[in-house]
């Protein structure tokens, strides 16, 4: 399946901004089931753009705009071919057996097994884990599937309960959250069980003729789990399912803090910068769907 994606980030400042420096992670990754056929980044006003790969091999674009400007627009256009995930049958390894070889895994996948900024192993998370912990006879894949469903059974999809800098404790106390929170919480429960889990930021392409429940989410987030035998496998805790050919991967990391679509600072005499995000995902051969919009605050003023 081929998608044409247009991701627009638009800033409007009440007083001119200057010395604006941002890092964006908006270029889809090429991976076994996904190929990025083309990518283009357009910045207005004119900006210096430097591309590099970060420590997780995500493509980063560093954008520098020096002169004063009232608005800043970053348009990322990509064409991505997404193949249906190959059917795979993970090995049915029970936890008792799985944890026996924990030491080697702990060194090799350290970053995806340990607490991270938004997934601290807090008292609250540990308690929640205790109520859902795997039995020694449960297989790793069974536990993963159970946890992916369990998190969504326990927490409602609610937009305004958490924010972009929320960690696992926030969703646990708020009782609800968005895809980012479900991903963080699921990752926490997997890591505490000794299963390597990582955060994926990306786009969820709408299904033809089906109105999405999550249309207000311009960007989506899910997780990947290192399962015995099959390697990194995608799960979407928000949808309680495996990932599909509608999941377009942009970046991977320990949690959201490694992969924000945009992070940066600017100077301004004003006090307000408003960010609007527009996302259009068009499946090749189908008419352009409605554009999804969201407003966020992701730049810091210096």
């Amino acid at each position, binding site marked *: 399946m081929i998608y044409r994606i247009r991701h627009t980030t638009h800033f409007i400042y009440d007083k001119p901004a200057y*010395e604006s420096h941002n890092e964006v992670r908006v270029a889809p990754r090429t991976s076994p089931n996904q190929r990025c056929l083309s990518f283009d980044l357009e910045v207005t006003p004119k900006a210096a753009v430097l591309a590099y790969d970060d420590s997780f091999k995500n493509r980063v674009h560093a954008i520098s705009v020096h002169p004063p400007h009232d608005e800043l627009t970053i348009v990322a256009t990509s064409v991505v071919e997404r193949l249906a995930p190959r059917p795979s049958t993970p090995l049915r390894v029970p936890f008792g057996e799985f944890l026996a070889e924990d030491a080697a895994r702990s060194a090799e996948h350290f970053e995806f097994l340990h607490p991270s900024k938004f997934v601290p192993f807090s008292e609250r998370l540990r308690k929640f884990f205790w109520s859902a912990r795997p039995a020694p006879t449960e297989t790793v894949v069974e536990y993963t599937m159970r946890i992916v469903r369990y998190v969504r059974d326990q927490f409602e999809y609610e937009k305004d309960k958490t924010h972009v800098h929320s960690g696992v404790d926030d969703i646990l106390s708020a009782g609800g959250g968005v895809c980012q929170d479900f991903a963080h919480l699921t990752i926490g429960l997997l890591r505490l069980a000794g299963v390597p889990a990582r955060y994926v930021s990306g786009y969820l392409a709408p299904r033809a003729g089906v109105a999405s429940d999550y249309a207000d989410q311009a960007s989506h987030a899910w997780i990947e789990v290192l399962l015995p035998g099959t390697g990194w496998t995608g799960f979407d805790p928000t949808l309680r399912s495996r990932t599909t050919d509608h999941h377009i991967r942009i970046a991977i990391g320990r949690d959201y803090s490694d992969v924000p679509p945009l992070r940066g600072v600017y100077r301004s005499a004003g006090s307000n910068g408003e960010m609007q995000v527009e996302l259009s995902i068009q499946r090749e051969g189908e008419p352009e769907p409605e554009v999804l919009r969201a407003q966020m605050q992701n730049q810091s003023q210096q």
Partner: protein
Amino acid sequence: MNAQAVSNPVPISDAYRIASGLFDEMFDLERRPRPGCARVVADLLVREPDRLAELRTRADGMFLRMGVTFNVYGMEEGSEKIFPFDPIPRVIDAATWANLEAGLTQRVRALNAFIQDVYGAGEILKDGVVPRDLVLGCPQYLRAAVGLTPPHGTFVTVAGIDLVRGADGRFYVLEDNVRTPSGVSYVIQNRVVMTRLLPDLVRASGVRSVENYPADLLESLCELAPGGKSRPKVALLTPGIYNSAFFEHVFLSHQMGIDLVEGHDLVCVDHKVFMKTVHGLQQVDVLYRRIDDDFLDPVVFRPDSLLGVAGITAAIRAGNVSVANGFGTGIADDKAIFAYTPAIVRYYLNEEPLLPIVETHILSDPDVRRMVLRDLDRYVVKPTNASGGYGVIIGPKATYRELIEAREAIEREPNHFIAQPVVQLSVHPTLLGDTNGAGPFAPRHVDLRPFVLLGKKTRVLPGGLTRVALREGSLIVNSSQGGGSKDTWVLER
């Protein structure tokens, strides 16, 4: 000069105590001066011991007039203090120094190779010589440094290696400082003062000069210029006047003839770094930064930091500016990594380490932890991610309550601590504060921080900073904890 006294060294009087089980830097067990020390002993300690107090008073006056001061964190008022100076110099003979110099050069080259590898191919982690989880779990491991390739692969331009001398007379590495090591300005200033106080003794002793350090540092910095630019613009980036080493920033920038700048003096435009001047923007090629990684770029690290330069990480990646020391060098001087440094030397250089390290126990290993906790009062416990002597527990000197707290802290977060056996630091005759009692001077514990400049040429500043614990029996020599310093003389012959 009294040639007689030099060629035929006289023992020191019985009033000076030679402690058993400690290495005295100046006297052997027969109370005779060690190699190279005879002239200082004869001229300063034997002939005119009463003059020492006067020398110190004159030295203090000079330091105050020169404005050689430092700040102590955690002190509310009057934060600028002069660094107490002891007028009895520490002498290192030429042969001893030659060994030290070789060992230091080897060590810093290996640490630099380690940093290059950790942020590059990661071979040492794949080969399991240093545990991958230890490196990645270290707070000093900087993901933003992954893939950076500074000119000539130089991450560590300036290193300060803390050495102690054990009872056996050997030098041991106590810790490495490869982030923003400070103290070199005292080395240079101590010599200026000593030369004024005792010009004849300095000359007659054949003391190797330290005055070239700023020129050597500048040369090493210029080598980092992007694209090998021949006359690069170099500036020193300071966090500002509240930093404990601000005096040094002023001193070094002045000596090198480069601009001293704060974050707000710089701006990034199109992934290049510029200095704001009255003549407009002037591009900077190399920054000698004395700001910690975390504060250097609010885009990548702490968005609340006002000390750094927004966008500088991208400018470094674009190859338009170099910073010294490079990003992420703290991974090599982390106290937990320290235990692996002999293996790091062997791995990269295929040589046996010339300088031994102080035995270091990693407390995350349950067996080791049990062994250490059993005899906690015999160890020095250090947090792995702090510096400046804060939070260090010295077992034999700790109170019962401090030991209990240390034990609890270790059991809670074993990864955050290492333990080292108490090293009996060597002692050196040091002028006492008040002179009632045995004599005007007595043995006090000292360490040594030599400075190494890495570049196309590796240069070791002859000598280094000798810090002395002025309180009797104290082992903590940090200036922030009541230590003083001595001039360090490396002899030409």
